[in-house]
């Protein structure tokens, strides 16, 4: 297999800091009187709380990279993706991208009231595909998503798995140069995972860059050639030693140890517990 790797950077993250401002985080009693005094006194809302979600990250992603991002809840994984997609402004530092990055997340519902069919068409139109292109790809998208007859029903009737499968299918229909996937595959069933892994590989071969946030470490191991381990908004470790980093992450977070074949370093499914 030809190495898809090149030395052309597609994403450069340069000392990135992201700060969320959360409104209504408590602080004042939230009554009309306190609001009035605050405005009269030209004071800032005390209820604005700052959350320093990313504290100085730097890395470079190249064409053909599939980068897994791992870390505990709240480590800043999704924030990082949203910053790369340009949806969150950096407080300090910068994110440079070769082109617009497409973020694909489980929570990214399209138009819930509309049928899957219309969502496919609208999603593709929004991505700038022509009507003819959509007609050509429509069957493929529906097949890929595997929602079957549900394609004629409103998306609000979908199970969460079906919804995210359809969203992935729509987003993957176009070859994105930079695709950011936020746990999109975790909800799919086994068959869908195989298909989506194949599609991610394909996207990588089309000289794209894929970022994958997943709690399912096996998925990262199977899909990614690089991994970034985040903890409290900073990078703990990153590199191409996917298996090594994952094992150290499991150690640090107190997860169950993975048994590996000493030669291939592939996972060995845990042996049946011996009868007492």
């Amino acid at each position, binding site marked *: 297999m030809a190495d898809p790797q090149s030395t052309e950077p597609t994403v450069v993250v340069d000392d990135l800091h992201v700060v969320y401002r959360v409104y209504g985080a408590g602080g004042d009693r939230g009554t009309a009187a306190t609001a009035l005094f605050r405005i009269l006194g030209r004071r800032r809302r005390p209820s604005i709380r700052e959350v320093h979600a990313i504290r100085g990250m730097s890395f470079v992603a190249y064409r053909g990279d599939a980068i897994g991002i791992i870390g505990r809840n709240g480590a800043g994984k999704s924030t990082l993706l949203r910053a790369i997609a340009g949806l*969150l402004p950096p407080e300090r530092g910068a994110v440079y991208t070769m082109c617009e990055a497409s973020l694909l997340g489980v929570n990214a519902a399209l138009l819930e009231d509309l049928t899957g069919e219309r969502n496919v068409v609208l999603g593709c139109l929004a991505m700038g595909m022509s009507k003819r292109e959509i007609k050509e790809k429509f069957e493929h998208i529906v097949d890929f998503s595997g929602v079957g007859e549900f394609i004629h029903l409103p998306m609000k009737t979908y199970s969460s798995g079906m919804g995210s499968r359809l969203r992935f299918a729509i987003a993957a229909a176009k070859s994105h140069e930079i695709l950011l996937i936020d746990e999109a595959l975790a909800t799919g069933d086994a068959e869908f995972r195989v298909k989506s892994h194949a599609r991610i590989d394909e996207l990588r071969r089309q000289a794209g860059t894929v970022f994958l946030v997943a709690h399912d470490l096996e998925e990262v191991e199977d899909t990614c050639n690089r991994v970034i381990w985040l903890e409290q908004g900073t990078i703990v*470790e990153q590199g191409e030693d996917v298996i090594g980093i994952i094992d150290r992450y499991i150690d640090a977070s107190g997860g169950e140890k993975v048994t590996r074949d000493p030669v291939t370093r592939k996972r060995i499914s845990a042996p049946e517990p011996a009868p007492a």
Partner: protein
Amino acid sequence: MRSPRLNSPGQLLETAGVPAATQHAPGADVPAGSLAALAAQHGLKPSAERPHLRVYLRELARRWSFIMGFATARNIAMYTEAKLGQMWQVLAPLLNAGVYFLIFGLLIKGVSRGVPDYLVFLVTGVFVFSFTQRTFISTSKVITDSLPLIRALQFPRASLPLAYVMIELQQMLLSLLVLFGLVLLRGEPLTWNWLLVVPATILLIMFNAGIGLFAARTGARVNDFAQLLPFLMRTWLYVSGVIYSVQQVVVQHAQNFGWVTTLLQLNPAAIYITLVRDSLLASQRASAFGAKPYNAANCYAWAGTARPPGVSRSAWITATTQVSNGRTPPGHPLSQYGSAYCHPTFVSTHLWQLGAGWAIVALILGFWFFWRKEVNYGRG
């Protein structure tokens, strides 16, 4: 399946120009300049950078099918839960006009005084104004409504408010069909003037697109805007001559509050409403300012003011009885409306120019205003 690189850890992607910190090195300091230089060298752009205006317009033009598709889909989805379904698109404006007619046409007689064919006058005003009103209110929520879509896909965000304008346009066009029927039923003639509805509607679309873009950005940034909007819209409705004749107020107050009456007339909503009324209704054209040679007695009698200086008592009595309450004496179906005998004003003679001016200014400013914050929409 593994790519060969996975099995050869250690062969990192170090190349010239890439600092060593891209390797796993916790806490390693990256010289800030070098990464930026690397990015610049390969032509990477900051991800949160606003596209150039020309690029943005081109991308937006490419999304035309999306805008129309989105509008149609939303319109269909809006009434799917209702038994009568799409019927509501026609029923809603009719009921709306019915309520206004009940109150201002039948219960409170004062406002319909001096207005020929008040029913169609009112319904035209309600339909035209509700296009603007609904656009304003719905676009102020468009960014919040579409957050999932914005966060999932990259596209020029201006497509969304424009799609909402198209949703309301479809509603407006259906309302216009209803209006055509109503106007014919009331015995107004079908003339070539009806064609003027087309340019009037186009100007109105441009104007609404402009204010829609303005409302979309304002609503997205300031949540309080949505609370304030209903009051703003009601005030606008009452100053726009939807339910009464602005012209009458102008004549009544021209002496003392000249500049206020000019402002009232310059109000874009009033201009577009008047344009559509003048196009569709022969009775409105016949009663427009300056449609007849100036006659102070007739004009002021129609406006319901006191006898103006320079008008003899006998002429005043004749005038007030003739145009009293705006009722046409039999045999003179359209000619007796006193407003026709008033002096034309600057606004009344430049309606099309002013309508076009408002449309262009609103569209350009609204677009520029929205585009300035393009990268901020959808941010938490």
